[in-house]
């Protein structure tokens, strides 16, 4: 009996000790990497670099080239590559049932299932031989319904030249596609530079805006398109050179990669179109290659991982809203940097880190002595504000599992 009591006490004591460790150190240890930031999923060793990614439906991402083929597709639900027709620049419609290829053969629409099954032998559902070019992007006009879609396509290497298509099902359930404009329309010729560039024009998801690089200033600009006059009016200018931007489906923000000349890495960034405010969103160890947005609000980006590429998925609303709390988020990002001994983080990166911190990591950073050591400009940020932000932060589902 005595022995059993000692054993029980020993076991109870061990359990209490382990439990106390859990209480004393809530959450998990700092990784001091992007693993401390909230992500929904990471698809390690993603095949290719994910350039020009576009999401089609819930499961599929198309992008340019891997394995010596001209277009590639990745099924994130099954975590594997899928076949797609080997023509350049596959670009799916957001609903994911159709995708397009541009090129000298014409602007072609394909059924996704056919494309996967037959690859290059898939027959185009519709081919517009009068709309040539490459670097296409697609917006869906607001009058569209799931049964009757009206899309607007901008051809990037034709300086954003536009054609529109109506996509419907006939009585037999067959997809019928027809061009809307009598011929493709050149746009933005009213600009001082004579038009958009021929590399990065991207139309917004609702078809009303277009991005392009100003040949003189070399900055990306966002324009409102007036299809009645084919003229464009400037809405805002991104203060740096960017790659092809991705409009979100709310048509309120653009996402892009911006080159950091100090580190040689590219950052994930967004810009609020109405205000022109730029937000940095990636961590110091991330070298972001490309970003795209999905219809449900998810964000996907690829980043170099030393030996290849990871595809990162952020859930809708994974990035905390700013709500006049810039200083609070910056302070959190700097607390993380200080805890990790990283003195190279700048305030813009800290802001992004603060908005993406995992909840348990966030809470573990809130030590009064660490907060007191922050720069004077954060002296007005109270502990209760920091705690409130951490309380609202999301948990990183992947933390501790990778």
């Amino acid at each position, binding site marked *: 009996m005595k022995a059993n009591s000692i054993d029980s006490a020993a076991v109870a004591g061990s359990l209490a000790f382990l439990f106390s460790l859990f209480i004393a150190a809530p959450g998990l240890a700092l990784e001091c990497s992007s693993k401390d930031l909230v992500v929904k999923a990471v698809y390690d060793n993603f095949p*290719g*670099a994910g*350039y*020009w990614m576009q999401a089609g439906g819930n499961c599929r991402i198309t992008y*340019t*080239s*891997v*394995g*010596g*083929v*001209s*277009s590639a597709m990745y099924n994130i639900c099954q975590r594997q590559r899928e076949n797609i027709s080997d023509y*350049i*620049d596959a670009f799916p419609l957001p609903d994911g049932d159709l995708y397009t290829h541009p090129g000298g053969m014409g602007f072609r629409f394909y059924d996704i299932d056919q494309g996967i099954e037959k690859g290059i032998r898939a027959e185009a559902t519709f081919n517009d031989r009068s709309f040539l070019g*490459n*670097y296409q992007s697609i917006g869906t006009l607001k009058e569209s319904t799931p049964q009757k879609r009206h899309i607007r396509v901008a051809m*990037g*290497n034709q300086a954003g030249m536009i054609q529109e298509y109506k996509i419907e099902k006939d009585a037999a359930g067959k997809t019928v596609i027809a061009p809307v404009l009598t011929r493709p329309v050149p746009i933005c010729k009213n600009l001082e530079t004579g038009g958009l*560039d*021929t*590399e*990065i024009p991207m139309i917004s998801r609702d078809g009303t805006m277009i991005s392009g690089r100003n040949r*003189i*200033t*070399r*900055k990306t600009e966002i324009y409102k398109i007036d299809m009645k006059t084919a003229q464009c009016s400037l809405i805002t200018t991104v*203060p*740096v*050179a*960017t*790659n*092809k931007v991705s409009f979100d489906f709310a048509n309120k923000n653009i996402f892009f*990669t*911006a*080159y*950091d*000349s*100090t*580190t*040689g*890495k*590219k950052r994930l960034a967004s810009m609020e179109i109405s205000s022109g405010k*730029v937000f*940095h969103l990636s961590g110091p160890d991330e070298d972001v*290659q490309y970003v795209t947005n999905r219809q449900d609000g998810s964000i996907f980006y690829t980043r*170099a991982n030393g030996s*290849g590429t990871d595809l990162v998925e952020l859930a809708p609303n994974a990035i905390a809203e700013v709500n006049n709390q810039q200083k609070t988020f910056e302070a959190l990002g*700097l607390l993380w940097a200080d805890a990790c001994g990283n*003195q*190279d*983080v*700048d*305030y*813009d*990166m800290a802001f992004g880190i603060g908005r993406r911190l995992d909840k348990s990591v966030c809470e573990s950073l809130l030590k009064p002595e660490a907060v007191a050591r922050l*720069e004077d400009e954060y002296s007005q940020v109270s502990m209760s504000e920091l705690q409130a932000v951490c309380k609202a932060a999301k948990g990183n589902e992947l933390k501790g599992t990778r």
Partner: protein
Amino acid sequence: MRIFLVLFIGSVLSLSAESQVQDPYQKNLVDQLKNTPCSNQLREYVGAKLLRQGWVPEMITAPRARAAYGVSLRDTIAQKKYQIWSTKNSAHFAEINLATNQKGITSWDNKSACKASAIQLAQGPFKVLKAGFTDADLKRTLKSHPWGLIYVWTPYMPLSVEGIVKAKEVAKKKGAPITVLMDPAADPKEAQKWVSKKKVDPSEMRKVASVELASRNMNLHYPILFIYKKQFLSNRDFVGFKEVSTYSDWIDMESAQLDKELK
């Protein structure tokens, strides 16, 4: 009196004509700097010769500071990099010696009557790759020819593969040497697949290891074409797949612009 009037009107007209044909790149920089605090002091310090060059937008970051969105200029002849940026009340000019990695920053603040202040710090370059087309290779290339082209492709963008033949064709038409290089992040196995398809020559799989090239927004988009002239590598690049005629027009325009800027 009549002669005076004719001369006066003539000078006014010629001034108007001159302002109308002002270089658009220079005009762009002048317009940007107009709104900069302590603009006069900054412009006087930087000097007209440097301001005449082809500056490009750049995001300038520093530890525990706010990112600035300014302009930069890399000079492969002087082996220097320059940056200009401003905040609400101040303007800054940085000169980086690329050989010694010493960075000197001169600042003017309108809160102190635009009096200049200066600091020196060390700023090493980031690393690209150990092996490949290095800065030494680039230097040799720039010195070896009066002018030429550098084309960078990636196995992950098929149009950059298709564009190699276009770039080489325009180089041949123009009598220019062309150096074809590969994305430093490319997997050689992926590149080899394009070689097997005979779209790429094995000699074109040499990766960019040059900090100078990698510093020019090189990996924002492929393909990317650079032009160099009189040992100066232009800061303006040309991205995207192009037909030969488009490349030809750009080369002519860029070459003429460089002649103006390098005077």
